[in-house]
């Protein structure tokens, strides 16, 4: 039986959803854009003098119906590696996020991210089967107001897997879109395999000017929007899970309604972190205890709405220490076991830093999570009655001395049952052997593996067409090559 954890009953989900609809209809959404307010009013909403729009249930359901299902596709250079987010996915897709800083545990160095850091991190991500793509948000100072173009460009160079970006400055839209067109193979292809951009609504229940501009830009340029809401518990969202989730759903649906009214039929996905306002340190934290509980609900909520959720896993730990292992494993596993469709993993330090070594811990955890999802297969062969009978029949004197180590049953089932790895960097040696090999910590072994990959692994190279397009875009928009 396949594993799936559920934390909410159907009745509880109905109640939460109905509360979200009530929030939209009775509390309303603050919208800082007259054109969008007018559009909402034309479609049955009311609005007051404070630009609060009250969205009726009927309109929400109409817009949910016009949102295409099973069509959210995160794309990159190689169409075979596209992620298609849909209801019956076997495993969640895992995205590794590129962030503003790089942390080197072995050198005890924390610095603003560089292009070399991005190249190495994206290359290693590309080499790992468990990672399906990259999300870019480095805000690198050298990139200035063209950061989304630069981030997209450098990621595209070093991975053929999907690349998503987080918002952008308005002037970066045309060059980024032109590059996305070249990557997709033309305008028509780009419509089928669109550029994906995430941006934020502001809690509680507010679409500010920036958010409204992003919604309009997506509809104008045919960009696939990923609507993000952040409702830190006890801060801009209720401290209770049910209320917080209802508010999240209301805010997400408000974005979905606007998108569908601006451009009916545009696919939409949601990014939905669970942040906690830490009352001890006055920090907004992502991988606290509430996140693990919410993590168990994500898959159920997205299945209920039938809109994919991209769910962040964002350890707060500043180092590759036991806290990192704890936060990463609890956040990740809860999401995987509840059938979340897509998980984006931030490195460490409250979404501020990445680290190459951490990719290998993620890689191992994701593989284990996938195996846990597969559950336990029970059939005549896996019950192994006959092999046991054979092993038990082996005698030395009047004592049984058989084992399964040389049995064909072990040969056949060892790999599918246990997903062993030959190049595993998880230490399983005897202490003496481990000492003989240099008494290396996990971080040290992971660092060596990173070096090996960077020396030997070559990502699928960009085509001449894309290379030429990059050159032309730099010239056309006067964007310096960095």
């Amino acid at each position, binding site marked *: 039986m396949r594993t799936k954890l559920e934390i909410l009953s159907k009745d509880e989900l109905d109640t939460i959803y109905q509360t979200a609809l009530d929030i939209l209809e009775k509390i309303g959404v603050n919208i800082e854009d007259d054109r969008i307010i007018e559009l909402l009013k034309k479609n049955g909403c009311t609005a007051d003098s404070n630009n609060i729009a009250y969205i009726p249930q009927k309109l929400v359901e109409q817009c949910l119906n016009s949102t295409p299902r099973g069509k959210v596709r995160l794309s990159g250079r190689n169409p075979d590696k596209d992620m298609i987010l849909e209801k019956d996915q076997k495993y969640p897709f895992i995205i590794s996020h590129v962030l503003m800083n790089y942390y080197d545990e072995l050198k005890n160095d924390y610095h603003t991210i560089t292009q070399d850091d991005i190249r190495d991190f994206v290359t290693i991500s590309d080499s790992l089967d468990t990672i399906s793509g990259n999300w870019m948000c480095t805000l690198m100072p050298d990139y200035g107001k063209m950061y989304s173009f630069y981030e997209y460009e450098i990621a595209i160079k070093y991975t053929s897997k999907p690349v998503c970006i987080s918002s952008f400055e308005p002037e970066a839209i045309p060059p980024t879109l032109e590059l996305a067109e070249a990557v997709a193979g033309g305008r028509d292809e780009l419509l089928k395999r669109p550029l994906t951009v995430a941006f934020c609504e502001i809690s509680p229940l507010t679409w500010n000017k920036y958010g409204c501009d992003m919604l309009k830009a997506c509809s104008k340029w045919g960009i696939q929007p990923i609507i993000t809401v952040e409702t830190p518990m006890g801060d801009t969202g209720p401290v209770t899970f049910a209320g917080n989730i209802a508010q999240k759903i209301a805010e997400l649906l408000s974005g979905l309604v606007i998108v569908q009214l601006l451009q009916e039929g545009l696919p939409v996905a949601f990014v939905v972190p669970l942040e906690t306002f830490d009352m001890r340190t006055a920090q907004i934290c992502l991988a606290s205890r509430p996140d693990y509980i919410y993590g168990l609900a994500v898959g159920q909520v997205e299945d209920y709405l039938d809109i994919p959720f991209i769910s962040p896993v964002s350890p707060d730990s500043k180092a590759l220490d036991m806290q990192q292992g704890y936060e990463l494993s609890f956040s990740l596993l809860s999401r995987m076991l509840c059938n979340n469709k897509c998980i984006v993993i931030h490195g460490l330090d409250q979404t501020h830093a990445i680290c190459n070594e951490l990719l290998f811990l993620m890689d191992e955890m994701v593989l284990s999570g996938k195996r846990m999802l597969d559950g336990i297969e029970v059939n005549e062969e896996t019950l192994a009655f006959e092999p046991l009978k054979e092993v038990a029949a082996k005698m*030395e*004197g009047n004592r049984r*001395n058989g*084992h399964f180590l*040389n*049995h064909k049953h072990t040969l056949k089932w*060892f790999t599918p049952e246990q997903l062993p790895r030959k190049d595993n960097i998880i230490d399983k040696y*005897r202490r*003496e052997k481990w000492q003989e090999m240099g008494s290396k910590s996990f971080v040290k072994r992971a660092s060596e593996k990173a070096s090996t990959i960077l020396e030997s692994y070559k990502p699928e190279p960009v085509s001449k067409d894309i290379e030429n397009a990059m050159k032309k875009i730099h010239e056309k928009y006067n964007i310096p090559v960095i």
Partner: protein
Amino acid sequence: MNDSIKSIYDAVIAYDADLVKRLVNDAISSGEDPIKIMNEGLSKAIIEIGDKFGKEEIFLVELMVAADACKAGVELVKNNILEKKVKSEKPRGIIVLGTVLGDIHNIGKDILKTLLETGGFEVHDIGVDQPANNFIDKALAANAKIIGSSALLTTTAPSQKDIETNLLNRKLKGKIKTIIGGAATNADWAKEIGADFYASTATEGVNIIKKYFEGEGNED
């Protein structure tokens, strides 16, 4: 390597004991040199597989199943050699293996045995729960140069010391070398009791024994 020997080699690499047996029988029937079958087909394949396991390119189960496939072929070849009275090659060395008194764990010992046998060594396995003198008596009877003892329990590891003491008492210390292994042992324990060698894994044990018989440290 001709086609029939190559197919035997491939069958071992494919972990297929039944196919190995059939192909070895076919090769013998068609007049293939049994020594060639052994050296160029079976041994070559298992040495390569052993190397792969040593480099962690394959798993233990693959090595063990391949070794069984190889052994199935070796038995047939040996019988043919005996029937034809062909002069066979000398074993690379003779070893006595067993698990010490009070201990009935046999897996590590069996892995070592399989690896040694497929590597061309003559192995006398005296089984589990064996008193010290049984190891020594068997070594004398078989003219073995190395005694290998396994102890998985900390309560039974002292029996390995008994082997050393008895070798000394019987004035055989140095003439018969000792190698110890098992979860209850380590290099410090080997040093403490006066064992000649310690192996933390079966593959390490094979390497130590090979090295010994290849001359380095071999007093013969």
